[in-house]
């Protein structure tokens, strides 16, 4: 009887163990936060912001895919954190939420000394060749709402809202919508930052996305009333160039803190 009990115990222990992922060295945790701002203020959706032109600008929808999020170690080793994430500021409906930002917690990151982080804005071409049904368990790639069948592409980024060019008079309201997509629009960015991930500490990387820069950064301005809508379109068309400019500008509006 005793033997049998021992045997059962052994089996149970074995079974509990057999389910674990193989161990690949010590791990630490890292959180990555994206905070949208309009200059110095946390960005609120449906809030009025004064533009350099004296217009009133609102953001209603602001989100984008991140792909291939990777850390670079001091020794140039590349550590893949995530294939895909989604940054969605639509929940910025009050100052607390906006100030907190969108936070991704990663608990299984290789410990060590790092010097950079990089990722793509949009969906990298390999995955963009597929469709939502190919990713049934991915909350973002698996969502047909993030896919635009007309281009056979994911929607890399969305910017929607309204601008009032006559803030103190009737009229002047223009709604805008810029959706970027298709492979030629995928943007990659790398950010230099030295940091350590240790097994007991909680490392944090914070990115700011300055929404003002998307439309008003000098040399890359997009004047909304001139062309208030683009869902990309065929290469070489003004619609394509405009959508591409929006995702380039989003990528360039991101800075690491």
């Amino acid at each position, binding site marked *: *009887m005793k033997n*049998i009990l021992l*045997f*059962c115990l052994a*089996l*149970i222990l*074995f*079974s*509990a163990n*057999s*389910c674990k992922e193989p161990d690949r060295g010590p791990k630490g945790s890292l959180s990555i936060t994206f905070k949208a701002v309009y200059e110095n203020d946390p960005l609120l*959706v*449906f809030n009025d912001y004064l533009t350099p032109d004296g217009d009133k600008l609102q953001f*209603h*929808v602001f989100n984008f895919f991140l792909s291939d999020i990777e850390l670079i170690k001091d020794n140039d080793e590349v550590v893949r954190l995530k294939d895909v994430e989604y940054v969605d500021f639509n929940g910025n*409906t*009050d100052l607390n939420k906006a100030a907190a930002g969108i936070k991704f917690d990663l608990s299984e990151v290789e410990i060590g000394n790092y010097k950079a982080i990089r990722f793509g804005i949009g969906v990298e071409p390999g995955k963009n060749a597929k*469709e*939502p*049904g*190919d990713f*049934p*368990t991915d*909350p973002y790639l*698996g*969502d*047909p*709402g993030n*896919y*635009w*069948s*007309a*281009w*056979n592409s994911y929607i890399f980024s969305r910017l*929607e*809202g*309204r601008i009032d060019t006559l803030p103190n008079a009737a009229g002047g309201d223009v*709604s*805008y*919508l810029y959706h970027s997509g*298709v492979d030629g629009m995928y943007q990659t960015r790398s950010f230099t930052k030295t940091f350590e991930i240790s097994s007991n500490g909680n490392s944090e990387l914070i990115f700011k996305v300055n929404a003002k820069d998307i439309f008003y950064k000098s040399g890359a301005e997009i004047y909304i009333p001139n062309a*208030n*809508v683009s*869902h*990309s*379109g*065929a290469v070489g*068309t003004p*619609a394509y160039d405009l959508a591409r400019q929006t995702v380039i500008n989003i990528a360039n509006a991101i800075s690491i803190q």
Partner: protein
Amino acid sequence: MNRPTRFAFFLFAVIGVIIACDPKDDILGPLSPNTGDGLDSIEYNPQAYQFPQINGLPAMQIPATNPVTVQGVRLGRYLFYEKMLSIDSSISCASCHRQDKAFTDGVPKSIGVDGTIGIRNSMSLINIGYSWRPNNAHNFMWDGMFRDLEDQVLAPVENPLEMKNNWEEVERRLRNHEHYPALFRKAFGINSKADITKELAAKAISQFMRTLNSADSKYDSVEWRAFNYFTESQQRGYELFLGDVNGAAVTKDAECAHCHSFSRNFATFARNNYTNNGLDSAQGYNDFIDKGLGGVTGILTDNGRFKEVTLRNIGLTAPYMHDGRFATLEEVLDHYVSGGHPSPNVGNELLTAPTLRTLSATDKADIIAFLNTLTDTSYFTKQEWSDPFLLPDPWAE
């Protein structure tokens, strides 16, 4: 210890291994002492339900806490058609969700017990399991009241405008029933009638609803079968619906697919987000008659937003919108082409669609022709989805 006992121990340990390695495998219901009602003598051996593969629909995401089993679906089907769920045993879920109307009811606002008229239009349950996105707090109902189907199911029973009952009473009825205790035993392994709970009932009904999947319309045959084509009018409607087909600039489009979105292999024609499609005028966020999502979240800018529902079977689910205000698809198209009513948060997809307001009568007719290709009647006579109480011997195995 004799050999059979040793073997039993061994078996037990092996099962332990299997269970420990499959976190999804928690179909075992609550284990309670045997109270002598003999339920535990009934075999409990649930089989995983095999979802048929359907072109255009991917594998469904299912909460790990409620795996779908043949026995659970079977119980769910009875409960879905069970009038005992309503206070006076007059209506069942199916009264407002009819198989031959893509599980809607054909009236503007649903009619509950005593003929009480509700506040909203019934919703189709075809492919309803695909509305569940684990990361989303708001997945079900026009206003996004529920994250999980299992919670949604509990609501109609106690809604005074619907079944007007309470779950204690329903549990009592189910426990005292001649057949239900055995079905609960087979589905969830309960040991006693007292273990029949609303939560288990909700799990079973949810399992049944997750099997209501179908994508067998004209659109689907054009997409998936050789030598099946749209008519010219349907094809034009499809292109208008989608907007810039194949990335090419077009002179006219309606861009419905922004919100009623689909891909070839995930063709639910629903983004399932919550937006305002311009049904009502509102000066400010507090002026919406029905606050929709905002009534649930308390967020001002969510007022006036409703679920971007599926357009599959839309030809079968008149009247339309959350309050059933439009009797026909012609009225729906007139609404969209008119530009809708102004309010602070109308979907920008509608406000910026460059040519939506210029669509002609022919354009509208073509879009409707396309929408009607989403009608699927293949399941009208599907036995597994039908009312078991209409069978000559309803409880036969």
